[in-house]
């Protein structure tokens, strides 16, 4: 307690003063975020910007969190795989198609790994990708407006975890099966796993101009659980690496039965060889059904195309496309150092961190230093490819990132710590505790050719006693450590939305100037847009009524609507006429069995309402927009079915 009070005596820390004594009391044994010095280093004065954007996966929320660093301030929860009634994502007519799949409309997924697009192995700030783990999908988010622009489903796959890691120039984003399944799907006994179940590594081509994704090919693999991935860089540019576990091919009680072998494998995929095999006709088209959802850049309306086939390349039909690197034990993360030479595996049940050498791997392939093969895939000799092992790193190594200064940082789940080690001699340099049960960690640019370094962020699964309790469900957390010195230093921890698995962090300077402030009204191509009040109005087509509304501070046109009947499907198409930054308008009406709308300046959004009782119901703007926001409202008169009240709306000049 006295330590916290000393912190509080620092003049600039008024806001923190109230919090620190509680943190100190609650945790007892763990050090508070340290010192006034630590607090100063995360303090961003009111009105000033953070230095970095951090994108965190929302985990079981299905979304993407956007935070500022070093302050840890939450800037936005960006909807990706889950409906968001706050802004009608997945509810509005324009956005519903984004959540279509071959299984129908799915309002949720489990998002794990944000991955920034790269050029030359460095994040270019164009897009960020994130995987949907449950119903396999990859989403692409446009970083000029922080909106989900595209979602593609991955057919024949299951448990899309090793995704969406990109190659060095975003030639591809990848996907893989964490849960092998019959491929293609079939009604077979689960006990026939070894016979019928297979893994798939999917390469999705990314168009360099538009970002548009298309599945290029799927590589059929032995039925292991392909867990995580990273692509090569520099000398290893043409390769992607996937960890696997359950090389035992167990189909029950995996926690025991998939933990038998001393080593599992990293699959090293030479994707340019795969391209050549496809070009040479060694792959085959197979039927598939998968949704490809795209938000049209001009109309801002999403549509779904149901695709019908993919290109399947059996690894055993394409010599040189895949090699297995034996790796202890049930490896989780696979991370490639900035030089592209070292391939670090997080062998989660291993007592060491194995580090493979890319150049030794190439030599071993040339020398045919194989210890055998599995399912047609050559297995290289461990001794021929290993560059070294990090001894005594802690327990449960999962993920590694790099600072660009010759150091690696590995998260240790079981011992709740980050271990810093040298890429030169593989010796441990420092360890710091995390609170608690760290999963991923993230360094700005930490998986790229040129890390920005400065911080490492721990992404923790368990917080227990770290925050004020909130019933049985507690928040997950991120913790920020300074890594500019020899020793890591904890500066800050803060709660996160959903469960943050991975996070990626990019200097704000790369994104700030790209931000769109409004959509150009003159370019609004929504088929139901009203580009001026004169274009507003109501039309009926049988039981369907279209209401084209405009909104500008502080009124709707029309704001009196009559002639609606019980049971009509009323489409409210609201166009926000504003062309000013940060002036969205909202729309909601009493009894709307749907979400509200939140309409950005220059944009049109549509929500459907089926009135079920007679009366005069108010609608209003839900986003406080001006001094006369309370006046921004209107009424809809709902008459009985078959009423003679004419359809009418008050539009000036009409």
């Amino acid at each position, binding site marked *: 307690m006295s330590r916290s009070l000393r912190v509080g005596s620092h003049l600039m820390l008024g806001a923190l003063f109230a919090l620190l004594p509680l943190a100190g009391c609650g945790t007892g044994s763990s050090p508070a975020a340290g010192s006034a010095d630590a607090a100063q280093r995360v303090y961003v004065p009111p009105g000033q910007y953070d230095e970095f954007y951090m994108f965190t996966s929302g985990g079981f929320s299905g979304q993407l969190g956007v935070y500022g660093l070093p302050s840890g301030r939450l800037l936005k929860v960006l909807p990706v795989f889950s409906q968001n009634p706050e802004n009608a994502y997945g509810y509005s007519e324009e956005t519903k198609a984004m959540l279509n799949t071959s299984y129908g409309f799915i309002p949720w997924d489990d998002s794990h790994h944000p991955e920034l697009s790269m050029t030359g192995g460095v994040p270019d700030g164009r897009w960020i990708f994130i995987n949907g783990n449950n119903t396999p999908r990859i989403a692409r988010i446009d970083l000029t407006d922080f909106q989900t622009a595209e979602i593609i489903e991955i057919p024949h796959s299951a448990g899309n975890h090793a995704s969406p890691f990109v190659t060095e120039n975003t030639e591809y984003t990848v996907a893989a099966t964490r849960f092998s399944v019959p491929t293609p799907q079939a009604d077979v006994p689960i006990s026939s796993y070894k016979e019928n179940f297979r893994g798939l590594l999917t390469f999705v081509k990314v168009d360099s101009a538009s970002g548009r994704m298309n599945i290029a090919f799927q590589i059929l693999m032995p039925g292991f659980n392909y867990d995580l991935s990273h692509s090569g860089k520099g000398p290893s540019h043409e390769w992607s690496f996937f960890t696997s576990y359950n090389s035992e091919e167990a189909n029950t009680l995996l926690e025991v039965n998939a933990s038998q072998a001393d080593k599992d494998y990293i699959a090293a995929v030479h994707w340019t060889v795969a391209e050549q095999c496809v070009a040479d006709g060694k792959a085959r088209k197979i039927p598939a059904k998968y949704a490809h959802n795209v938000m049209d850049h001009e109309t801002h309306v999403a549509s779904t195309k149901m695709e019908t086939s993919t290109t399947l390349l059996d690894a055993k039909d394409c010599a040189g496309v895949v090699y297995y690197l034996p790796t202890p034990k049930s490896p989780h993360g696979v991370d490639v150092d900035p030089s592209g030479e070292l391939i670090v595996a997080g062998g989660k049940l291993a007592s060491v961190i194995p580090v493979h050498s890319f150049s030794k791997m190439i030599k071993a392939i040339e020398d045919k230093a194989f210890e055998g093969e599995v399912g047609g895939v050559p297995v290289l000799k461990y001794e021929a490819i290993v560059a070294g092992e990090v001894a005594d790193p802690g327990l449960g190594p999962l993920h590694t990132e790099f600072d660009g200064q010759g150091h690696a940082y590995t998260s240790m789940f079981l011992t709740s710590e980050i271990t810093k080690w040298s890429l030169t001699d593989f010796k441990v340099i420092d360890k710091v505790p995390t609170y608690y049960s760290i999963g991923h960690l993230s360094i700005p640019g930490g998986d790229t050719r040129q890390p920005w370094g400065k911080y490492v962020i721990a992404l923790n699964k368990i917080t227990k006693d770290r925050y004020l309790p909130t019933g049985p469900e507690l928040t997950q957390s991120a913790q920020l450590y300074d890594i500019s010195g020899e020793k890591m230093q904890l500066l800050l921890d803060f709660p996160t939305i959903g469960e943050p698995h991975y996070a990626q962090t990019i200097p704000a300077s790369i994104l700030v100037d790209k931000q769109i402030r409004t959509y150009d009204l003159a370019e609004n191509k929504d088929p139901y847009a009203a580009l*001026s*009040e004169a274009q507003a109005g109501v039309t009926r087509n049988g039981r369907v009524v279209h209401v084209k509304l405009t909104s*500008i501070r502080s009124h709707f046109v029309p704001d009196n609507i009559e002639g609606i009947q019980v049971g009509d499907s009323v489409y409210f198409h609201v166009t926000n006429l504003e062309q000013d930054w940060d002036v969205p308008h909202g729309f909601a009406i009493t009894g709307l069995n749907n979400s509200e709308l939140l309409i950005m300046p220059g944009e049109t959004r549509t929500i459907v309402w089926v009135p079920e009782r007679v009366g005069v119901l108010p609608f209003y703007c839900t986003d406080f927009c001006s*001094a006369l926001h309370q006046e921004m409202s209107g009424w809809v008169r709902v008459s009985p079915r078959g009423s003679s009240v004419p359809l009418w709306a008050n539009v000036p000049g009409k």
Partner: protein
Amino acid sequence: MAAGSDLTPFQMENGIGPITEAVTLGPVNQAQADEGKALFESKCSACHKLGERYVGPPLGGILDRVTAAFAMNMMLNPQEMYTRHPVVKELLGQYMTQMPDLALTQEQARAVVEYLRTTPPPAPAE
């Protein structure tokens, strides 16, 4: 300089913003006025009528009441006009709603001025 104001006489007369020199008006350029009319209808008419008060003040014949530079600065830089110009501050008190930034270019604002030159002033109140 007006009492209690940090504005120069030019700014008092012509507003604050990107237009820092008086705008000379020649004979009406009809093509420019037509472009201005289209802009007025799409961008301004949601809040302004020519002959009567609506959300904002009536704009018919406005160029008889303010300078072209003032009108343009009001269109191009409303936020600062509301915070610093005493006349505009007073208007805010009357109308209680701020004019949004419509993201017009200087050329577009000039075209709107050209159109407004051709409009008649509102009828005097009874």
